[in-house]
């Protein structure tokens, strides 16, 4: 059953629609991803759900009642929120940041402490070590883990995530995506996740809504989007994601494209292509030590690999 439903929702700024007659239902326990390019209206749609933005027309319902029928505070305590800018409060410790909503809800100190420590443990940040750190003492990836815990701390029914990983480096991003999937499976909570990265959407989403120009083009499972895109735009977006996915292969898979040159800079075979590209820019050639043996890759190897990957893809979609 639908936990959140948007019916004919339009948001206009200065008479121009940013979100245009959008209808959508998100089910209980679902990880729903809204994907689209910048300016597609995905973030505005998300912010209308916790009323950071109010729609110009249309109705949004949460648990079968219009948002406007809830007390603002109670509504927001039930809708966790994670920002792209992370925005941990810089004057509060890690534990105080996580406890922001529990404290407002009047939990006892003991209960807050227990919950905070449990949460920190689930994201592999030992409480004893991290509880009293300030946000500025954490890496970007660690900060966003706390950002997610802050949204989860009071057990909200829904968590809204606005491009939470797009400011992170590729390694942290992958780690946090995996962490999010793990948490989602454990908590069985409802998540609405906004991203511009189709690959991320494909990886995370139970269902994906593709947006463009304020409209929903297609809402479907990742498989259906891959096999049955509603139009060329969705198809292109998916293809782009595949190409991007191509950059996520490990260097060990480039063995067939090894170059016949020598290289002084050595790297591990489990490094992804995305991570290796900056190194290649600096060193021209890399000595890869993979479990399948050692070989050298240079920019020619990468181009040759990508060319073969794209040819495969294009022939696949034409079939």
């Amino acid at each position, binding site marked *: 059953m639908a936990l959140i439903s948007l019916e004919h929702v339009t948001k206009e700024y200065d008479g121009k629609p940013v979100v245009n007659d959008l209808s959508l239902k998100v089910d209980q326990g679902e990880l729903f991803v809204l994907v689209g390019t910048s300016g597609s209206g995905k973030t505005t749609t998300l912010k209308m759900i916790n009323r950071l933005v109010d729609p110009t027309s249309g109705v949004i319902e949460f648990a079968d009642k219009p948002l406007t029928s809830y007390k603002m505070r109670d509504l927001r305590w039930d809708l966790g929120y994670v920002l792209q800018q992370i*925005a941990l409060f*810089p004057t509060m410790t890690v534990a105080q940041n996580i406890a922001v909503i529990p404290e*407002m809800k009047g939990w006892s100190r003991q209960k807050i402490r227990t919950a905070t420590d449990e949460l920190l443990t689930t994201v592999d940040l030992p409480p004893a070590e991290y509880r009293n750190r300030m946000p500025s003492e954490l890496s970007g990836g660690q900060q966003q883990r706390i950002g997610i815990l802050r949204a989860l701390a009071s057990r909200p029914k829904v968590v809204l995530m606005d491009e939470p990983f797009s400011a992170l480096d590729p390694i942290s991003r992958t780690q946090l995506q995996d962490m999010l999937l793990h948490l989602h499976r454990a908590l069985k909570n409802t998540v609405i996740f906004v991203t511009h990265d189709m690959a991320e959407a494909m990886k995370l989403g139970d269902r994906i809504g593709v947006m463009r120009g304020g409209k929903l083009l297609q809402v479907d499972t990742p498989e259906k989007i891959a096999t049955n895109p509603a139009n060329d735009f969705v198809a292109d977006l998916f293809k782009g994601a595949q190409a991007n996915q191509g950059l996520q292969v490990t260097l060990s898979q480039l063995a067939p494209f090894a170059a016949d040159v020598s290289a002084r800079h050595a790297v591990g075979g489990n490094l992804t292509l995305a991570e290796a590209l900056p190194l290649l820019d600096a060193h021209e050639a890399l000595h890869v030590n993979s479990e399948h043996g050692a070989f050298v890759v240079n920019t020619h190897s990468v181009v040759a690999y990508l060319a073969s990957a794209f040819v495969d893809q294009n022939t696949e979609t034409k079939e």
Partner: protein
Amino acid sequence: MADLWRTISERHGELLSALGQHIEISLIALMIAVVIAIPLAVWVQTHHKTAAVLLQVTGVLQTIPSLALLGLLIPFVGIGTLPAIIALVVYALLPIFQNTYIGLRDIDPSYEEAADAFGMSRLRKLFKVELPIALPVILSGVRTAMVMIIGTATLAALIGAGGLGTFILLGIDRNDAALTLMGALAAALLAIVFSWLLNVMQKVSWKVSVGVVAVAIFGMVGSQVYTYVTAPKETITIAGKLGSEPDILINMYKELIQKADPDVGVTLKSNFGQTSFLYNALRTDKIDIYPEFSGTVLASLTKPSAAQQQQVTAGKDNYPLAKKLLAKQGLSYLKPMAYNNTYALVVKESFAKRYDLHTISDLGKIAPSIRAGFDLEFIDRQDGYKGIQSKYGLQFKVDSMDASLRYQALDRGQINLTDGYTTDAQLRQYHLVALQDDKGLFPIYRGAPLMRTAFAEKHPQLVAALNKLAGQITEKQMQTMNYAVSVKNEKAATVAHRYLVQHGLLKEVR
């Protein structure tokens, strides 16, 4: 340096109480400014046009010269601590308001969005998120304001509010560098200590800070209330300008008044910096009596016509004219004392004896051998050295020198003639004599109590009491009393009392 230590050890009691006054005035002003400026800056976050206007207004307020501001406030709030605090608050508003406004405005909007998205109320967001994030910027504004307040509070002494400025002003007036230095150093140290305290408070938990501030407020408000409650209900306020002479005079007034009417309470406010402060305070009923000189009345407080001006230039007694012009303003100028506190040409007693010098004209016979040291003002005045040249036809070899150095230079024999005032303590201190102005060059400055006519009519017995000083006190006697206070560090009250007793002025009128 040795002078400084001696001064500190001699006056450590006064220093401590002045320090206390200074801290009290500064902290009260700072807290009032904080209480006004911070909420205002919070409120205008959502009113950007108002914010721009307020920034302009507080900026303009800060450009008003502090002396002018103190002067402007006297007609409305009187003298003493209140106008001083108001003026200091006015100066402190800009840095605190500006820093709070900018500190809050420049908070990354994503923090605001996060706070909103977590359902924080407006107040909770302000106290838990916005103010803590802006705190370093706000506190740097408070620190700027505080250092400025502690510095500017030295001027509070000019309007009878006390504080460390008293030493600075007295030191300047008495040419006592150690005294000035003591006041200035204490004020500077105070600024440094408080700046440091603010830093410490920033680091300790806010609960401790709030506690400390609360105790400070409680203590100060308590002492204010106590002072207010214990103050006598019906009092006459007598004020005096900066220096030992007005201080001695107002102490005499006080004794004479209390002798005439033991039930009346008398408050003394000494060491006011400016004639205009006292004059305005008197006219607006903030003080009741102050001693004024006839020469000052004609030069600064009234506008005599050209004809009237002409009458009094030739060294004639200008008291009757001053009295007449003041009466038109509704002010009563009581009978004057004997002495004339005016410019004088001064030589050593031994020098006068050797050449048989009594009058300025006597200098004619030895003019070529005279080496004079005058201050720049005197050299340039028509009723100064210029008049000496034209009226007496005297020409000396003249060095210009700072007023504070001339007596010492005379004492050491570097010069043998200088300008001074007829009642200066230094005349007694260095055994000097003032030559008689036999051709009436210098304007006449006769001192008498000034009060509102309405006040004089209501208190005829006080007028009678004060008139006992009429024709009393010669220049020599005044020199001696000034010497006792400013060189010997006797209390003005003691010196005043001694004079009144010795001259039988405390006997009953009837």
